[in-house]
């Protein structure tokens, strides 16, 4: 398997709390992977490590065979779980900003998605609703021609119809060799588009398998299986 991301004995410790403990993962190209786990299980920590926003305490991450650095950042498009949009800009201005900033930003793709979601480019970001801002943020991320998309809670704040649109956008836009990693709690909504899932619990990988294998072995959906595994 051609790997886009590999974690070797990855460990992250915050002052006196272990966020990730000895995580070993291999993620292939051309996959859509669900990163699933209860609150505080280490999902966001893992995503931030792959972006170089955090550095590992032990172990390493390779992106397309290379350690985290300038080259890896060119290949990874990251959607944070918090609002990162420049509030004072209009969407139009921000498109220009992104096009300047990222060599791989596809303006045409961004314009098309904004149009089909009927987002007014002339309005300032701060005047857009919370859900609309989330849509804009996702459009900005997905408009890069990246090899790895790291989406941290991309659909939490949008309505179900838009969720479907976003998932369709992900399926139709990611290229054959690109991998998308989605962290989310809305498993039932994303399950159909995932090829693989990673269950992460208390900083450890509890399970890493394909969706079809889980359904075949357990005779239930990933959503149902998650509820059983992480029953409170």
């Amino acid at each position, binding site marked *: 398997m051609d790997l886009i991301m590999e974690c070797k004995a990855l460990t992250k410790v915050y002052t006196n709390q272990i966020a990730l403990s000895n995580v070993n993962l291999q993620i292939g190209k*051309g*996959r*859509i992977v669900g990163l699933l786990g209860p609150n505080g299980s280490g999902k966001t920590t893992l995503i931030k490590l792959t972006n170089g926003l955090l550095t590992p305490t032990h172990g390493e991450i390779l992106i397309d065979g290379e350690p985290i650095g300038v080259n890896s950042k060119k290949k990874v498009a990251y959607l944070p779980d918090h609002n990162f949009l420049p509030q004072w800009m209009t969407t139009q201005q921000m498109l220009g900003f992104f096009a300047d900033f990222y060599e791989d930003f596809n303006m045409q793709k961004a314009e098309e998605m904004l149009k089909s979601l009927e987002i007014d480019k002339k309005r300032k970001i701060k005047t857009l609703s919370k859900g609309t801002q989330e849509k804009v943020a996702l459009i900005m991320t997905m408009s890069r021609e990246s090899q790895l998309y790291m989406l941290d809670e991309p659909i939490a704040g949008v309505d179900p119809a838009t969720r*479907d649109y976003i*998932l*369709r956008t992900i*399926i*139709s836009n990611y290229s054959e060799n690109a991998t998308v990693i989605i962290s989310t709690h809305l498993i039932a909504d994303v399950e*159909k*588009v*995932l*090829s693989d899932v990673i269950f992460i619990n208390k900083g450890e990988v509890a399970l890493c398998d394909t*969706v*079809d*294998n889980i*359904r*075949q072995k357990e*005779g*239930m*959906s990933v*959503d*149902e299986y998650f509820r059983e595994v992480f029953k409170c």
Partner: protein
Amino acid sequence: MSWYFSNDKPIFQQLVDIITTDIIIGKYKLGAKLDTVRDLAVEAGVNPNTMQRALAEIEETGIIYTKRGDGRYVTEDYSKIASIKEKYVNGYTEKYIESLKNLGLNNDEIAEAVKKLLK
């Protein structure tokens, strides 16, 4: 998204059933070209890898085939589709008979129950 999937079976298997049924009922005509994997995946709202796997599975039954560098086509040979249809008919019927047997019905009673509702 437009296609419905149940929770208890792998999605690729359900795709196999849906697309095979569409071929049996003639939604895809004999010799017709199928949409690309990507387009079918978007339509169904599923992962393209899953769609790919389902199509490969259907191909093994012989009712669709790949033209190299061109795409997938429905077979021109109706006998292949007919034999798959028979398999599906038998499968559904066996399941149905099984559930009536679980209710304690014998063969005559099962036949009677079917006849009654077919009128």
